[in-house]
């Protein structure tokens, strides 16, 4: 492969961080996912877990069994080989309630974006989003694909508590929350779709790489 080799850094004796780049772009993210799949198929000795992120993959190891030197070598070998093919992504449709109490930040987003509230909703509904990573809190799936014209930076000061199911945006991203949490993101809707179903055989709704479309729920 012609890709430049990743930078591999130690996280104490917990694992290694494999950095494929410093920016979110498709080739970098694909390499993160490829190594994640390769490890799932052929875990190296002492492997504990992998945590994919936008441009890096954390690879945990058991320091009683192996060490960073051995894991690093195993990873470089895996990276050099053609990865297992990616699974076919699924398309999920998530109903969202917009307006009123469901959309505490809709008017402010509209004002800042120079749009009418209905135009913000239309923009949010028109895009197809991609599930990049889970992070921060249980079931928080970071969806990429928020249209340019409703992209806003995060607030400087987080709002104290927003309920689970908040549909919120910041920059090019969107999250449907699963727990009540303070946030600096902009809440433009509410969904009652369960991203986490603890009793299901697959407790988390999305696989990485899946696609998401939002539809307007009847109030």
């Amino acid at each position, binding site marked *: 492969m012609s890709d430049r080799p990743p930078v591999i850094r*130690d*996280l104490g*004796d917990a694992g290694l961080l494999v950095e494929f780049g410093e920016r979110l772009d498709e080739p970098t993210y694909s390499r993160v996912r490829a190594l994640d799949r390769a490890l799932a198929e052929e875990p190296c000795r002492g492997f504990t877990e992998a945590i994919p992120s936008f441009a890096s993959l954390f690879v945990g190891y058991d320091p009683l069994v192996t060490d960073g030197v051995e894991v690093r070598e195993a990873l470089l070998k895996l990276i050099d080989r053609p990865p297992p093919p990616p699974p076919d992504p699924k398309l999920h449709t998530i109903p969202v309630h917009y307006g009123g109490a469901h959309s505490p930040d809709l008017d402010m987003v509209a004002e800042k974006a120079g749009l009418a509230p209905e135009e913000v909703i239309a923009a949010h509904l028109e895009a197809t989003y991609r599930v990049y990573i889970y*992070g921060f*809190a*249980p*079931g928080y799936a970071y969806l990429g694909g928020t249209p340019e014209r409703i992209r806003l930076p995060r607030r400087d000061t987080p709002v104290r508590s927003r309920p689970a199911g908040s549909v919120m945006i910041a920059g090019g991203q969107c999250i449907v929350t699963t727990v009540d949490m303070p946030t600096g993101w902009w809440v433009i809707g509410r969904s009652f779709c369960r991203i986490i179903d603890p009793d299901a055989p697959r407790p988390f709704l999305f696989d990485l790489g899946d696609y998401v479309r939002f539809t307007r729920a009847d109030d």
Partner: protein
Amino acid sequence: MSRAVLTIEHAGPLTTVQDAGRPGYARFGVTTAGPMDRLAHATANVAIGNPEGASAIETALGGITVVVSEGSIAIAVAGGAPVVTIDGTRVEAWSVQILSRNDRLAIRPGRWGSWTYLAIAGTLPAKRWLGSTATHAQSGFGGRNMAAADTLVIDDARSRPVAPRNLPLPVGARPRQDVRVVLGPQDRFFSSAVQQSFLSGVYTVTDAYDRMGMRLGGPKLAISGSLDMLSEAIVRGSVQVPGHGDPIVLLADHQTTGGYPKIATVIAADQDGLAQLRPRDHLTFRAVSPEQAVAAARIRHRQTRAYLQAVSDKGSRQ
């Protein structure tokens, strides 16, 4: 086995049920949680013949008071140096006791330590989620927060043949002020002068200390360059530096990803001791290589195995 009922008379903040934790779900945003001091948690469990990773009550500086309202049950206390009393009479902080009906067990902060474990000989009622009863306070998925007036019904309570006894303290039970770290993964975001002040300065634990992490006061750590960093995985022990420049050591309930630079990672062998520090305690950081961190983990593991073997209750083991 018989039934016992415990009533919580008082539970300070951050009193939760913790088993050994919920590893393997970080890729879904689920942190491992589990005990802040893993060795003390395991000690309390094995001392009364429980599996090492069984559910036990973790209590912080607010303490806990429990009354036996029905039956009798063996318990073990371990972690820190709390003041432990049964009906007002002082007993050893690290010990196995048999409680009978109407006995009142109180655990209050003593000379040192932040976290103490109360293990009971029987199954603590707590919600299992993704295979674990560890409480992740922020989400409320799994486990259980303890509050005054809660009753705990233990259907499989054992009070015999567990032998009441005092437990010797393991190596490393005390708060650790000399904390070893491996620099990185974002040490490059800090000038060598800033890295030097991180490694030579004296830090103080602030009141901003809970199960998620510990914010430190001391030399501020200025970040070179822009803060524009993609979120990436965090581990227990990550030393994160937000814009305010005060390092935060992330612990059991840490978020799974974050976008602030991390100057270093506290090695696993020193995490239990670090967690036992209290607000206003001092600490310093010392850099070791990843190879030294792995070696320290192995030494710590050998010591832990030998110690747990020595203090485990053989009599009631199945």
